[in-house]
Each structure stands twice: as C-alpha cells, then as structure tokens.
C-alpha cells in the first residue's frame, strides 16, 4: 500500500515540472515585455536596462526558467502588480473561502446524487427512475453561471430569501482560526455567525454542486444496474437477504469505485466552475482573485494562481488514487 502510494507521489514530480514549464512558456509569450508594464513611461533607457538587470530579464531564457522554477518551488511567486503584496499572502488569505465552497458543494453533490442514483437503479424504468434520469440530464447540462443568475433573480431578488453575494454580513469573524467560516463559528460557538455563513453559502454551493450531482446520479445508476445483474447479487438474493442489504451493502460496495472516480474527475471541473460561481456571487475566493488579476494583467498573480490551482488538482487526484487503492485491493496489489 505504502509502496503504491510512494510510486504515485513520485510519478507526479515530472508532471509538476512540465506544468511549470508550460506556465513559464505562456508567461514568456504574453504580449509585451514585463519591464514595459512595470516601468513608468518617462524612464530613461538606462533605467530600463537597470531594471531589466535587477529582475533578471537580461539573462538567457534557460536561466530565467531556472529562477522561476526555484522561486515557484519555494512558493515565492513574487509581488502582485495590482495589490503590491506578496502573491502567496494574497492567495492564502482567500484560499479558505474557495476550499470551503468547493468542499460543501462536493458534499452536497454526493448527498443528492448518489442516493438518487441508487433509488433509481433499484426500480429501473419506474416513474421515479425516469424522473431522476431526466433530472440527471438537466444537472449535467446546466450552465452554472446561468443557474446562478436565475437563482439570484428569483431567490434573492423576487422572494428576498437569501443574500445574492458575498460571504458574510459582518465580514470575516474577528479572529479567524482556520479561515473556514463554518468551522470557525462552530469552534467559537458563535451560532449567529454560523447561521449567517450558511445563508451566504447556500446559493453558491447549490449552483456549484449541480453538475456533479447530475453526473453522480447518472453514473451511480448505471454502475449499480451493472453490478446488480451480476451473479453474486443473485446469490445474495437467493440466500434470502433483504433487498436493502443487497443494494446498500453488497452492490454499493462495488459501485463505490466508480463514485470515487467521478468525484475525483469532476473535482477539477468543480474547481474551474468555482471561478465562475465566485464571480457571479462575489465570493471572496481565489477565483475572483484570478479574474481581477486577468483584468489588471497582473502576471505574477495569475502565474501563482494557475500553479496553485493545478497543484490542488494534482493533490486531489493523488487522494483519489489513494482512496481507489483503499477501496479496491486489485489496484493496490496488482498495479
């Protein structure tokens, strides 16, 4: 098991290396010289040359890449042009908000999608199955930015039930412990703040979860149907086990591999989706930071964020692989 895990971790090193190269090449091919962006127009030619030397822009590309790599590995992404703060500090400030939203959305998708899929598969072609299959289609096809706007229009605008944007009414709690508002308010036993945080979280989390919930429902249904037609299920039924035990204990155990795959694969889509959802709901996470960085052509900030997003995605994939191996002995022993 440990052996398998170590092999997978080592396997990601070349991938991270290639990604850094890709981001560096993008940065190189961006229109305009970084020096032109940073130096005031009235600067003399000597000033520019001086600045280029100071930033290492006069070095050969390979040397520049080496420096880029060294600083990226030490998590030093430089200073943001726009905010004039270290990029890492900016990201760390906003990262918990994004992670909180993404995790709640994932949990929501699992809680909605999987039971629906199981119920649908246990009564194939019933009205419930057909209705939830259609619901699954709707879920996977829903453009989440549109759903966000429509929910704001109806829930926040028309019925005035929930706030249309932001993360809390009072700003961040006086002394954040983890940066996760839900967790912080529980730790501080501040139930008004907790209720407040929930109120702000509901709409973005629903919107972000809908694609994953639809896909999970559909995949759970089809893989359950496949498992339920296997011989060992017939044996279990023949033994006289109740249908509940057959479905929830025997069948689900084998279907969960697929569930892990879908959650893992879709987490990438979820992270990308969070960029848009954060924009629509003014959620103060790194997605919004990325879009602000793009508008301001703040290259250090964009570079840092792309690397952070990608690393997060790689870590999630590693966790998925690990869960796989835990769920399926064939993988940890064979692969």
């Amino acid at each position, binding site marked *: 098991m440990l052996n398998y895990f170590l092999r997978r971790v080592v396997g990601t090193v070349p991938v991270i290396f290639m990604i850094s190269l890709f981001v560096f090449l993008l940065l190189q091919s961006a229109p305009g010289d970084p020096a032109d962006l940073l130096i005031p127009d009235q600067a003399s030619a000597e000033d520019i040359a001086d600045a280029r030397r100071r930033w290492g822009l006069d070095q050969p590309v390979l040397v520049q890449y080496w420096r880029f790599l060294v600083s990226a590995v030490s998590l030093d992404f430089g200073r943001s042009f726009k905010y004039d703060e270290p990029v890492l500090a900016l990201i760390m400030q906003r990262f918990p908000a994004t992670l909180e939203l993404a995790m709640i959305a994932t949990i929501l998708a699992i809680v909605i999608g999987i039971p629906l899929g199981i119920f649908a598969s246990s009564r194939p072609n019933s009205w419930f199955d057909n209705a939830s299959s259609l619901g699954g289609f709707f879920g996977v096809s829903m*453009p989440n*930015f549109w759903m966000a706007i429509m929910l704001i229009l109806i829930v926040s605008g028309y019925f005035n039930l929930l706030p249309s944007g932001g993360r809390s009414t009072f700003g961040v709690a006086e002394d954040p412990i983890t940066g996760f508002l839900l967790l912080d308010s529980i730790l501080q036993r501040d139930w008004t703040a907790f209720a407040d945080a929930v109120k702000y979280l509901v709409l973005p989390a629903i919107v972000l979860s809908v694609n994953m919930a639809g896909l999970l429902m559909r995949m759970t249904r089809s893989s359950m149907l496949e498992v339920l037609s296997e011989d060992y299920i017939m044996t279990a039924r023949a033994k006289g086990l109740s249908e509940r035990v057959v479905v929830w204990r025997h069948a689900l155990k084998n279907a969960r591999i697929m569930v892990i795959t879908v959650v893992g694969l879709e987490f990438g889509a979820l992270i*990308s989706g969070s*960029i848009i959802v954060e924009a629509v709901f003014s959620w103060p996470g790194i997605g919004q930071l990325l879009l602000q960085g*793009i508008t301001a052509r703040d290259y250090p900030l964009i570079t840092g964020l792309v690397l952070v*997003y990608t690393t997060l995605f790689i870590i999630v994939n590693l966790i998925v692989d690990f869960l796989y191996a835990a769920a399926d002995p064939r993988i940890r022993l064979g692969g």
Partner: protein
Amino acid sequence: MQQLIPESGSAADAAVAPVSPAAARRPSPFMRALRPWLTFKAVLGGSILFALLVCAILAPWLAPYDPNKQNLMAAMIPPQYFSGPHFLGTDHVGRDLLARLIYGARISLSIAGAVVVISGAVGIALGVISGYFGGRVDFLIQKVVEMVWAFPPLLIAIAILAFLGQGLGNLILALTLQRWIPYCRVVRAEAMTLKEREFVVAARSIGASHLRILLRHLLPNLIQSALVIGTFAMAAAIIAEAALSFLGLGVPPQIPTWGSMLADGRAYVSTSWWMSLFPGLAIFATVLAINMLGDALRDNLDPKMKRRR
C-alpha cells in the same frame, strides 16, 4: 459490434425474402434501422439540434433585425411575443434579443464544431498511433496526455486567454488544448486490442504498409466510439465557450454570443430579466439536446458502453 447496427445485414435479408403476408406485416428495413433511434432522448435531442442548425445556417434570413443594430430609444423593451416588433424584447442598447440569439447560435455552434473537429483529428491520430505502435512513441504520447490532463479543464483555457489575449484563434486553441485527450485515450485502448485481431495480422502478412493499416483497417473501426466522444465534447465545448465569453475572455464583444449576452444581462438582472433568461435557456437547451443525442448514440453504437436495462 457490427451486428448491433441493423442496417446492412437485415436490409439484405428483407430484399431477398419472398413476399408473404407475414413478411408484408414486418416493418420495412428502413423502419427497422430507424427503430432504435426512435427514443425520447434521440428524437427530442435531434429535433432541438436540427432547429438550432437551421437557425445557425439561415441566420441572415431568419433574424428579424441586424443583431448589432443599436437603438437607444427602444432599449430594454420586455418580451412582446406576437404583440409587437420585438418578440423577445431588446437589450440595454436596444438590440433585438431574438436576432442576437439566432446569430449567437451560429457563433456557438461553429466554435464548438471547430473545437470538436480539430481536437478529434488530433486525438484520434495520436491515439491510434500510440495504440498501434506502442513502445517509446506510446510512452511519449501518454506522458503528454498525463501532463495536459493535470490541468483543471477550464483553467487551462483561462490561462491561455489571460496570457495570450482574446480572439477567435486563441479561443479555439484554448478549448482544443485539452479536448483531444478523451479521444486519444479511448482510441488508443481500442487500437491496442484491434491490432491483435486477425484482419490486421492478415493485412500485415500480405505486406500492407503501416499507414494503410492505420487508415483502412483501424480507423473505420474506431470511428463510432470517436463519434460518441465527439458528441459529448461538443456539449462541453459549448458550455466552455459560453463560460469564457461570460467572463469576458471569449470572442470580441461586438460578436453576439450567448455567453456575452448573458454577461450583459447579468448587469441588468434586477430590471430586465429577459436579457439573462433567454440566452441562458439557449445554452441550456443546446447542451441538453446534444447530451441526449450523445446518450442515444452511445446506446446504439457502442455495445460495450451500453447501459443495461
């Protein structure tokens, strides 16, 4: 795989069979070929997509107005349906919403189509080479696949557009960059099993070149799975293009796309709901239709992926 598609074999049977009362009652070969496609998913998905294609192709004749003609005197008119000149109303600068939607279909479908065709060509080519030749070539291609796949899907597109700037070319590049991976993976796996089959070994033994085997023997057997993947890729590309246009990273603002219309609408959502409702509905209906059609295609073309009933 071939038996599941009831056209060629069964059509020949029906032509040879003597005409008896029993045979006369049997559905015609055409109907029998058609029957697997007459499901709710296929018919609904197909007709929505057909209507959209008609809109996209005939846009200049169907659209009631020039999609970019501004008229500030007629700004933000609510939908009038059949009681006025602006069926679905107008936007904040008085452009007709219906006209923009119809032209938007053109942009959305052609960008998504270009993405699907380019990524399909690249993915199928690399996949079949990777699976057929194996060895070092396969290793190299799979390393590239692994690296590109390590990016969260939309992020790679956002990164490219952020660094290289907007524009149609960059948008298609940004969307294509990851979209070829699913083709490559599936085609590679199929090519690996196909190359061991007798017809390929036989072709090799009579001296057929690698290129001939790839093009004449492997490719025709791979095209069905690629078609299924292509359909889902089309749906994904339409959503991605709309999302990027919505974020202001897509095509230049003067070109009407559903995503940028939605972005316009968002600013006026509290006063003019129709500006957000209809473009989003168009994206949703298109993606839903393509997904349904893809599902039907998979059920009918790809027995391995067919869901049991």
